[in-house]
């Protein structure tokens, strides 16, 4: 079989290039320029899919992106894409497509039994049943429903393709390249405005590509399109984007476009992105999205071989494909007549034109008669025959009584239908504009512009080639003028032919069949019939939104672009309300389904989120360190030696720090340089602690609250000079602390002469902790007397480390003698490697965050975010000492005075020791008074931190416990699934309570 339905000549396909593709494994031929749909039709294939609910055989209905039936899966090198519209899939050599929603095969589908059972499945049937027995919903009904539902099969493998992104600005964005869009683009471009013209199709021209009869400036439409595009392409201020769908219209004239870059190629270069997201800020937008033809709702209007008339004409003229050999045209609109004429002129037997109008235009009737086409006026289709392909139509005559009388049967292998046209208002609707009902057009059309956009041509219900062109030019001129204030000087092209068609029908047609037996489809894909809509109305669904949700009409992948108007009309009849009072559902973005990968773009793996590394990174990797993610940072969790698990590594690291010395990368801690004459005053207001009397060269622990009174951050702050502080924050808190400081500084205290600068990444920080810390750093530090007297605990001084400037802090988060050395970041690697080498000489160790946590827990130091959770006050944390008693105000002070923050029974920070020293509590475990509390017993608190403590030779834990400060020495329980664990409440300071080790 070699394309038996291909015409002899004509069309936009390249007949010289033959391409082989497969559909459900069967090899077929097509041409360059074909869509899968046109190629299938050329091969005589109409049956391409099964419907969602009843699994009825379905064929190609349209030639555009609104196609409801012809959804296929496409395979390419292990990548699989479901639900692609055959009308949009371009044929390439080797294309592999499969039909969907059928088992075992498209021809024989067991799901088709649903069609026989359909009387049981009216709209919303599932709300009324499947409730008994109760347990069956999860186990039986739902799995069956889920397996039956869905269209294509989901992709099974990770996607190999990449996706690009580009941000663009333009003066005028024109969406759609039919006559109106092209004219608008030309007019706007002539002013010099920056223009982007996009069209979802492979080729620019829209409806002009399938019009063989009209002329523009004496040229064929295609010649005119080619000239126009060539001209636009030559202009520097114009960007032409084919295969590019404007799918989203957002606030402030922000339009998202999806460009399909490689999908049409047989063997795309892997360097090319599969698709590219264009995010365009347009000063003005011209929506030239055209109109789409409406199906007619007659019984059995869904058989393969029944298409929209304009689709039939497009397949013929643009793709050189006849939709059948014996074609019936059923219409309410003039435009379908032209399709009949074109088909007849290509030798197709047009068996009849059935026009439901009593008196179709005489000129059309005359042309038809001249071609020998039978014309049936006042005639409707009342049914069709043929299971997998239509083979005959039943005709009926409309009587003045409103009844329908049978008018016999006509054999055919295709039916072209036209219920008139519906302007495509999706983008306008997305722009938040409100559509208005236009009685003359018989459709909803764009109302007032809410954003800087205007619709042009058929998109606003304006039909006829000449009118559309003129409107397009005018829209382009107006848009450019609004965008850049320049008038266009473009000569309008003049068209002949392509007249606007008259006539339309909405809603279900009357027929003489048994209404309870036949199905007249409104929404093909979701199998919604006219009966379903009437049922919804009968059941009290009054809003169109209810009807939509109850019947699922308009919820298919075309978002109701084909079905909405018919559904509205049927609802209007059933509710006995004018159509405008039924309401209209909103068109949501995207205009057509849009690939997830396009939205995700480059964000995957390391580019999903920045991987922030410190200068020790390479060394850590080389030495087997294990990382943990802390925000975007990679922090070393622990450094296992060979054969060590985490527990062993941490135990060794802890013991080593206490015994000799450890090296820790503290670079990720937030650092903020606070400078200016009012620096101390500013910190005084921000932190709970007093700062004014802190001498230069000294440090203090700072506690930061929010104005509600809860702890949000902490860190050591060193005073480098009267007017200069070095503030540290937690790693995760760095950005928010900085933002909070800026907030207070700029908006509450702009009079203060102080500025803050983030220096987090200016410095690399190494913490050297342990009894031998001084010995370790001494060889490298110059300019600072490290003796205990000259440089006591909580000191800071500037000097050099290996000759590079450093800020040396004597501080400790371990309870040991400790130093933190800050060097300019580029020297961080050198510092780390120098110190790593040095600690080896002292049998020291590098240690990670886990050991840091254990060591600080032994000392009862809190970790904000672990031991506090945003509901803890300084008093709760036992840190009243950190509050400057004489301060009149600081952030959080007033909040702390609120009734619940000074109430009894607050949860307070304590230590816990399990009765059995080997039992390690689980972090997050709850604490109760009873050993085996009843379910629902309120907890007294919870375990915030829990570790094995090498220094204590046992487990230790920190916790927040109701009235905990008063409970030291008392027993409580930590209830676990296998029984409560007895714990003693203690001071949170387990090790070196006097702090002697700090001050050596």
């Amino acid at each position: 079989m070699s394309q038996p339905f291909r015409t002899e000549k004509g069309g936009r396909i390249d007949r010289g290039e033959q391409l082989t593709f497969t559909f459900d494994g069967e090899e077929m031929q097509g041409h360059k320029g074909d869509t899968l749909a046109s190629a299938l039709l050329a091969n005589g294939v109409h049956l391409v899919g099964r419907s969602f609910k009843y699994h009825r055989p379905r064929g190609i209905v349209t030639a555009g992106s609104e196609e409801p039936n012809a959804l296929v899966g496409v395979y390419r090198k292990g990548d699989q894409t479901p639900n692609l519209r055959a009308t949009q899939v371009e044929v390439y050599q080797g294309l592999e497509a499969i039909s969907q929603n059928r088992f075992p095969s498209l021809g024989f589908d067991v799901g088709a039994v649903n069609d026989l059972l359909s009387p049981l499945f009216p709209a919303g049937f599932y709300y009324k049943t499947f409730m008994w027995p109760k347990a069956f919903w999860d186990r039986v009904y739902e799995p069956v429903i889920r397996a039956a539902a869905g269209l294509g099969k989901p992709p099974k493998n990770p996607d190999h393709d990449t996706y690009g992104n580009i941000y663009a600005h333009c003066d005028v964005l024109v969406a759609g390249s039919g006559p109106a869009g092209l004219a608008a683009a030309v007019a706007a471009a002539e002013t010099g405005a920056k223009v982007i013209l996009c069209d979802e199709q492979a080729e620019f021209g829209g409806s002009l590509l399938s019009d063989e009869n009209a002329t523009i400036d004496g040229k064929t439409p295609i010649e005119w399109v080619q000239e126009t595009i060539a001209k636009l392409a030559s202009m520097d201020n114009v960007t032409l984007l084919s295969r590019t769908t404007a799918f989203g219209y957002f606030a402030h004239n922000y339009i998202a476009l999806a460009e399909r870059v490689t999908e049409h190629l047989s063997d795309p270069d892997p360097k090319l992105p599969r698709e590219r997201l264009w995010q365009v800020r347009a000063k003005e937008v011209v929506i030239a999205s055209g109109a789409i033809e409406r199906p007619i709702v007659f019984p059995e209007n869904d058989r393969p071989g029944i298409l929209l008339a304009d689709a039939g004409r497009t397949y013929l003229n643009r793709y050189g494909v006849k939709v059948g050999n014996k074609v019936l045209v059923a219409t309410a609109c003039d435009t379908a007549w032209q399709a009949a004429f074109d088909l007849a002129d290509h030798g197709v037997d047009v068996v009849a034109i059935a026009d439901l109008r009593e008196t179709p235009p005489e000129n059309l009737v005359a042309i038809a008669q001249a071609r020998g086409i039978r014309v049936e006026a006042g005639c409707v289709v009342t049914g069709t025959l043929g299971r997998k392909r239509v083979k005959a139509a039943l005709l009926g005559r409309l009587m003045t009584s409103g009844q329908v009388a049978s008018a016999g049967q006509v054999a055919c292998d295709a039916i072209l239908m036209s219920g008139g046209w519906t302007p495509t208002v999706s983008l306008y609707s997305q722009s938040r504009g409100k559509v208005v009902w236009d009685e003359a057009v018989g459709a909803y059309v764009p109302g007032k512009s809410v954003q800087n956009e205007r619709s042009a041509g058929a998109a606003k219900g304006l039909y006829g080639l000449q009118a559309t062109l003129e409107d397009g030019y005018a829209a382009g001129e107006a848009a450019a003028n609004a965008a850049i204030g320049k008038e266009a000087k473009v000569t309008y092209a003049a068209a002949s032919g392509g007249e606007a068609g008259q006539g339309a029908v909405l809603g279900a047609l009357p027929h003489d069949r048994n209404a309870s037996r036949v199905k007249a489809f409104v929404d093909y894909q979701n199998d919604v019939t006219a009966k379903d809509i009437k049922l919804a109305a009968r059941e009290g669904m009054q809003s169109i939104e209810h009807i939509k949700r109850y019947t699922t009409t308009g919820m298919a992948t075309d978002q109701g672009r084909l079905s909405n108007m018919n559904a509205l009309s049927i609802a209007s009849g059933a509710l006995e309300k004018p159509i405008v009072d039924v309401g209209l559902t909103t068109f949501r973005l995207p205009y057509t389904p849009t690939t997830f990968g396009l939205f995700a773009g480059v964000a995957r793996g390391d580019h999903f989120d920045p991987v922030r590394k410190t200068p020790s990174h390479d060394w850590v990797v080389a030495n087997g360190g294990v990382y943990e993610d802390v925000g975007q940072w990679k922090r070393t969790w622990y450094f296992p030696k060979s054969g060590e698990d985490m527990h062993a590594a941490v135990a060794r690291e802890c013991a080593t720090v206490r015994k000799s010395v450890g090296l820790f990368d503290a670079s990720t801690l937030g650092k903020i340089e606070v400078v200016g004459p009012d620096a101390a005053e500013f910190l005084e207001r921000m932190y709970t602690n007093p700062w004014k009397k802190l001498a230069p060269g000294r440090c203090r622990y700072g506690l930061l609250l929010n104005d509600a009174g809860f702890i949000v951050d902490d860190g050591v702050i060193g005073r480098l000079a009267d007017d200069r502080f070095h503030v540290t924050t937690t790693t995760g808190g760095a950005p928010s602390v900085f933002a909070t400081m800026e907030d207070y500084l700029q908006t509450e205290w702009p009079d203060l002469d102080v500025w803050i600068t983030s220096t987090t990444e200016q410095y690399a920080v190494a913490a050297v902790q342990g009894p031998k810390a001084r010995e370790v750093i001494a060889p490298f530090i110059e300019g600072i007397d490290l003796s205990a007297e000259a440089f006591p605990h909580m000191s800071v001084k500037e000097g050099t480390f290996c000759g590079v400037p450093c800020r040396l802090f004597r501080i400790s988060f371990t309870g040991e003698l400790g130093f933190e050395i800050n060097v300019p970041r580029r020297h961080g690697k050198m510092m780390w490697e120098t110190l790593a080498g040095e600690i080896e000489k002292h049998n020291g160790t590098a240690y990670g965050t886990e050991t840091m946590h254990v060591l600080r827990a032994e000392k009862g130091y809190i970790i904000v975010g672990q031991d506090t959770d945003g509901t803890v006050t300084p008093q709760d944390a036992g840190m009243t000492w950190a509050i400057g008693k004489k301060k009149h105000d600081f952030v959080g002070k007033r909040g702390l005075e609120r009734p619940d923050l000074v109430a009894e029974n607050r949860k307070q920070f304590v230590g816990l020791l399990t009765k059995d020293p080997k039992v390690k509590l689980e972090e997050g475990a709850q604490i109760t008074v009873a050993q085996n509390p009843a379910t629902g017993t309120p907890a007294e608190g919870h375990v915030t931190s829990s570790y094995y403590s090498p220094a204590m030779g046992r487990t230790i834990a920190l916790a927040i416990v109701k009235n905990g400060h008063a409970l030291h020495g008392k027993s409580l329980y930590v209830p676990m699934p296998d029984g409560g664990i007895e714990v003693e409440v203690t001071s949170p300071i387990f090790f070196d309570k006097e702090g002697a080790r700090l001050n050596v």
Partner: protein
Amino acid sequence: MSDLLASDVITPDAGETPLLSLPGVSVLKAAPMTRLSLRLREAAIPAAGEAFGAKLPVTPLGAETSEKRAALWMGPDEWTLLAPEDQLQAVFDGIEAKLDGQPHSLTDISHRSEALIVSGPKASWLLNTGIFIDFSLEKFPVGTVTRTIFHKSPVMIWRTGEDTFVVEAWVSFMDYVAGILVESAEELAVA
């Protein structure tokens, strides 16, 4: 590199191989330099410029350059001062001396960020794969400097020539920024 005459402070790092070298665009790492963040009140602007050796621009998003100096407008009271790496202390001390007694904040941020030099006819296209700024010459003339967002990373962009941009990011973000730039440019290699 002729574009770079706008500033002799930013130079390609001689020791580094280009991250990207395509006919349409190249991406080079810039050599280390002195960077200072200067904050002060309006009254101190002239004195600070004098001490630094390049005027502090007061036009938003503006840059002023002189020999071995560049002063970049970051905000109404914030400038980034650029100078050769080895002049840190001299520049710092000079400004501090001059501004003694006038409220100000001068902070060394030399190591906080790294710079890339992105140049070539496709440079602005490449930046636009991740930055939502109109880089047309009318909207973003040569000399414009701004902070913005590149995908999920904060960056600073300074246009030093029609087809040349300096892209700075905090050091720990640089792998991300450079990585995505290189990945996004890949398609330019396709004929």
